[in-house]
């Protein structure tokens, strides 16, 4: 499954806590696209986890939130050079394109973004195998023998055993273009995190304007977001209260603690994908800083 690499005593001391959790498995190569607030958190988290190779890619100036039209993520590069790609701050057409390239090359794909108080993470790990430790039921120890002597309590050799599970993921395209008008979907709507719909509006905004909502054009952007919201509700035949109207006020820039929360979850999911340990979140995580909710859902 994973190649065993040797690590030095120094590294063992440094990554003591990580080894306790993830084991000594070999490290993988990660490409991180977009290094703003969320990207920086993800980078910090996975570097701390001891990942050996991380490539950062960012086309934009630090100061201006400019158009992210031309992403030079080359098909061949992605497929050959990386095991995992994580894209932040990208518009949905780019995300879908990168996701598809990854899927063709069996590269694990992650996406995420933070808009003010809101944030999300998406993952497509293809068909993913992971190990989980399941505690064994404890055998009842016999405490007394016939002669009344306390019996030797058996020492425990194997307290847990590992199970390997396989899990299939959907493409981002399916998740974003899901038809919410079918009878099955209509039933699901009420239980779907509202942040999903907020994200859809924001992603639509990015596709349309080739940029994120910006504080420099706050008034105009809020108006446009409001229009996009209405349109989305109509298109999907959703009730008005499903998507609170004032979300637009809280979706500018990246709020640092929100980046920390979404970046923490995203970082942890990348570490899980690398180590192939523990069940991954399939396929969305949404954080809504206005109500404190952090939800995992499978959409698409």
């Amino acid at each position, binding site marked *: 499954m994973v190649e065993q690499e040797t690590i030095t005593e120094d590294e063992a001391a440094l*990554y003591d806590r990580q080894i306790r959790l993830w084991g000594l498995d070999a490290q993988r190569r990660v490409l991180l696209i977009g290094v703003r607030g969320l990207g920086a958190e993800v980078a910090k988290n996975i570097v701390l986890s001891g990942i050996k190779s991380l490539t950062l890619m960012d086309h934009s100036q630090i100061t201006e939130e400019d158009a992210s039209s031309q992403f030079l993520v080359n098909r061949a590069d992605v497929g050959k050079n990386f095991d995992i790609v994580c894209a932040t701050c990208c518009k949905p057409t780019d995300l879908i394109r990168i996701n598809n390239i990854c899927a063709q090359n069996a590269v694990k794909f992650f996406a995420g973004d933070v808009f003010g108080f809101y944030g999300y993470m998406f993952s497509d790990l293809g068909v993913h195998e992971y190990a989980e430790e399941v*505690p064994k039921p404890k055998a009842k120890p016999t405490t007394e023998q016939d002669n009344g002597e306390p019996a030797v309590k058996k020492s425990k050799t194997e307290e847990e055993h590992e199970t390997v599970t396989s899990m299939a993921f959907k493409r981002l395209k399916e998740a974003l273009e899901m038809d919410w008008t079918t009878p099955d979907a209509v039933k699901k709507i009420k239980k779907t995190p509202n942040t999903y719909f907020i994200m859809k509006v924001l992603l639509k905004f990015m596709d349309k304007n080739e940029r994120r909502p910006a*504080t420099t054009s706050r008034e105009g952007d809020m108006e446009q977001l409001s229009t996009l919201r209405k349109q989305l509700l109509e298109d999907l035949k959703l009730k008005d209260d499903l998507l609170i109207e004032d979300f637009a006020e809280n979706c500018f820039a990246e709020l*640092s*603690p929100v980046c*920390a929360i979404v970046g923490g979850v995203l*970082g942890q999911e990348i570490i899980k994908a690398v180590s192939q340990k523990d069940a991954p979140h399939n396929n969305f995580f949404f954080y809504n800083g206005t109500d404190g909710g952090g*939800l*995992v859902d499978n959409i698409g």
Partner: protein
Amino acid sequence: MAASLNEKVRKTVNESKILVVGAGGIGCELLKNLVLTGFTDIEVIDLDTIDVSNLNRQFLFRKEHVGKSKAQVAKESAQKFNPDAKIISYHDSIMSPDYGVDFFQKFKVVMNALDNRAARNHVNRMCLAADIPLIESGTAENRTEETDLPVIKTSSFTLSMHDISSLIQGLTECYECQPKPTQKTFPGCTIRNTPSEPIHCIVWAKHLFNQLFGEEDPDQDVSPDTEDPELAGEAGQSALQTDAKDDAVVFTVNGNSMEKETTAYTSRPRSFTYLSASESAGIRDQKLWTIQECADVFSNCLPKLKAELSQQGEGGMLVWDKDDESAMDFVTAVANIRAYIFGIQTKTRFDIKSMAGNIIPAIATTNAIIAGLLVMEGLKILTGNIDKCRTVYLNRQPNPRKKLLVPCILDKPNPKCYVCSAKPEVTVILNTQKITVKVLEEKIIKGQLNMVAPDVEIDDGKENADKFLSDFGIKNGSRLKCDDFLQNYELNITIVHKRYTFSMK
């Protein structure tokens, strides 16, 4: 900075003075978040220095910082994110009398990023006394019955605070309103006579360390307990009488001098055959040592520890620390030798470090998420949205309602809380004829009730320390008034006398 917040909130954030207690895993992340959110007036306190094992998650620290004050380095690193931020650091214990009610009253919010309950309890009381909202945080382990290793199931972030304006009783639960589960302890007879699991041997090894080099504690006796009913009769007696023929090694202790004496246990112990030391490859911490290797490590670390002890001069003692190499070697070797004798599985130094050091495999991402949540709750308090504050739990896997983060409404204060209620009361069950004034003060009032500088209304001068409570006329139903000047905390203790009680730990 923080363009997500409206102007009014930004101004509040900019002007609010925040205290961060602890600059470890959560503390580092928290400082970064606070500075990036626009907080510019922060004070941070931590008594620890940086250890190499911190570097993998306490990201404000680098290799060259090892040995330096956590608070000081964290301050310097965090300040780089925003040079306009004014951060003050204290390399000190928050429980020191230097940080009284006046100190706490300077802050708008206090945020705890601590790793021990004693300090949490203390800060809780200081915030109650100073009437300052407190946000508590932590990561929890979950020891399952089936395993010896701690397993994280949930990492929790709890929030407790009380209304800034209310005077007598808080609006919400304080940290001590609900009793917390105590750390898992093992019955003395299991440790001393009938170990059956690796952890029993590890606890025994730690006790032995303390008996030899540390503070003497009668609760940590390591010799076989002859009064143990399980060993009554033949087994126990012969264990003490048989001589060396079984070759089982028992360590007996005379004061601070060490003698290795060979006696034998009758049940279970098997004979001590040296296995050939195979030079197996791999990291020293990760492979199982042979008994020969354990014996070698044992004889190597003994003189080192002895030298460390004698360096401290007369009356000095060592405090066991998982990060001290010799101390950790000692416990690994001793625990494995004992395990071997009793036919219990031996463990690697790595595993033993987990168990002996109660290491919770807290990881960078958990700390990052918790520290993010701390700031989100802080923003609610500062903007007057106290009704929106929540206790938030971070699950490892989403619950059936899809929640990975579970926000819970804050509970009302417990009217019978022994800390935050109007008239704090507590009942202590003990044997007044067996408990001395010193034990009452050290183990109960300080150790269990977590006072720092208690004043009890019995004459507790030094000459009385060894007298029993009954010598002062303290009997069943006696009420003691206990006052802690630093914590500004008064507690009435009702004594219930019971002749047979378990030893107070």
